[in-house]
């Protein structure tokens, strides 16, 4: 019985913790009988914008750790502002109306973080290379789509005989296809290609003509032959980053990688509950919740 009571006491002690600002009771304005305090304002802003704002502030910490501002970045941000100003004479008035102190405040809070975000994305492709290679299986290749097995066999023989991929595509390729022998980055995002071809290109031990015809496994199969140019991740990392960096899921993967690296942890119950419901992958110190996010992705 004493143990039960202790348990109840312990669970009672773990009431939900929500954060508050230091001068929460300070009044902001009084309208008739109604006073608004800074604490009330904080609570409302936290509910409406908190989840996004906390992540933005966390990103700024990550940027400063991983890709600190340098002179080149400052110049890029300045150039971006000049470009905006060239197309919009009232830009300074508009950003002040939005709440920024001045041009520099806007550059520091919007444009520089955006430049840093681009730099971080490039760095992510180096830092988390193993995961990205495993997931996207990138390789540079010349792929040709043929409409029949017979054409594909002939195309493969022609490649083996030393004809260029463009010549072979012209003679045996399917005109309407986007795979016409040009050199391109092949990844698992190329959903039209047979998985076996993507895997074979990624795991081939040397560049050159791929040894067989690869066909899709559906009722109306498409046939592919290919020449591997390179599957060296390190050698191709810039091209891989340029192509995959714009993938919407990559931005989230990048963020989660660095949140994990720096042990991002939330100490406000309301924000925690929001992330748990909407973006559990951000709760990196709770692997059980992150797993839920992976399952529902």
């Amino acid at each position, binding site marked *: 019985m004493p143990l039960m009571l*202790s348990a109840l006491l312990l669970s009672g002690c773990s009431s939900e913790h929500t954060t508050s600002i230091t001068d929460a009771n300070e009044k*902001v304005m009084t309208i008739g009988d109604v006073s608004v305090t800074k604490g009330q304002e904080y609570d409302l802003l936290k509910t*409406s914008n908190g989840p996004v704002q*906390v992540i933005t502030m966390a990103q700024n910490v990550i940027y400063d750790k991983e890709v600190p501002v340098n002179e080149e970045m400052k110049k890029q941000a300045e150039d971006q502002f000049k470009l905006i100003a060239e197309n919009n004479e009232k830009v300074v008035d508009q950003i002040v109306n*939005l709440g920024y102190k001045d041009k520099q405040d806007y550059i520091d809070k919007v444009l520089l973080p955006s430049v840093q975000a681009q730099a971080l994305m490039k760095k992510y492709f180096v830092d988390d290379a193993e995961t990205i290679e495993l997931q996207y299986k990138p390789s540079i290749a010349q792929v040709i789509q043929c409409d029949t097995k017979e054409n594909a066999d002939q195309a493969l023989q022609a490649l083996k005989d030393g004809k260029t991929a463009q010549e072979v595509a012209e003679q045996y390729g399917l005109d309407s296809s986007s795979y016409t022998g040009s050199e391109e980055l092949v990844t698992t995002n190329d959903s039209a290609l047979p998985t076996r071809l993507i895997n074979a290109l990624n795991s081939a031990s040397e560049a050159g003509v791929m040894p067989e015809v690869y066909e899709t496994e559906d009722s109306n199969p498409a046939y592919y032959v290919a020449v591997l140019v390179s599957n060296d991740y390190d050698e191709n990392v810039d091209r891989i980053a340029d192509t995959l960096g714009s993938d919407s899921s990559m931005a989230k993967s990048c963020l989660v990688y660095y949140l994990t690296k720096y042990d991002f942890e*939330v100490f406000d119950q309301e924000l925690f509950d929001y992330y748990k419901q909407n973006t559990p992958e951000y709760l990196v110190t709770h692997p059980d919740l992150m797993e839920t996010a992976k399952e529902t992705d």
Partner: protein
Amino acid sequence: MSDLFKDNWFVILIAVIIIAFVGYFVYDSNTGKVASKKADGKDVVASLADSNITADALFENFSQFDGALLYNLYRNAVVEQSVETTKEMEEQAKSMEKTIRSNVSSQNSSTYRDAITQELASYGYGSYDDLYDYALMTVKQRSLNQEYVDAHFENLKDSLKDAKPRIVSIIKMEAADPQNLTDEETKKRDSIDKAIESDSFAQAATAFSDDAATAAKDGLFGYVDSSSSASSTGLDQNLLTKALEMEKGETSDWIEVKNTQTGVISLYKIHVDETDLEKIHQNKDEDVKKSLLFSILNAKAGLEADILESAAKDLKIEFEDQDAKEKLDRYIEQLKGGNA
């Protein structure tokens, strides 16, 4: 020692079970609950690496851009204290709350509920449970706006003088294939045309229209003007365009209208009942009043803020935080410039 275990094995087993139960109970009670953290005496919202994001820092970031929230809090307080709540307003607010809650339930999604909660917070309401308060405020603000516009209509009506303001009525006739009417459908169409000619559009609508809602109101659809759109009024764009081309008393030919949801094509006639703004303003129909008010508020940038300022003159207003006053003033100026 072993004798002690042998003699009391049952008691020990029960104790172990209780301890395991208590352990699980404590663990379960604390699952999903965050710990608290402070840095330099300030609440920490989140941390990563060696950095803490404090509540104070978060608020500082927020408050730079809080003009809209300050305005909404100011609006809520002014409206709350300037308009007396009536039973009718309470009913309207309950109906609005019910509609929103029903939408939330039909979505069956807690993320949707989170989205509503966030939206309410940006309007100055702390939780999803404040939905009724928000609904009541909007009903009361509409009443405040209506009262002001009624009192200042002479000055405000000019804002709509080039907008082709009008009240329109409609008649709907369903047909299986509007291009090839059956004998019965042809007979009905001719009867409607005859009734419009010999009696009135209103009488024809009451007697024949297949649109139950408007037929019950002599065919009255409501107020439209050049700023109206199909999405804002629910009136088909072809009917809307035709309505704006016609003069008072004119009736259109039959117009084919495709229901965007069902794909079913029906035949419609539209009639312009009134174009005189004074007479439109005097119309007692609630929908007409609401639509006209909406158009006037939209046509004159910052009118809603002017109405609030006018009502606020009767209240004592004090700004303990001068920054807040500047941000609020700037936001109101933006509203008046049509930029917010």
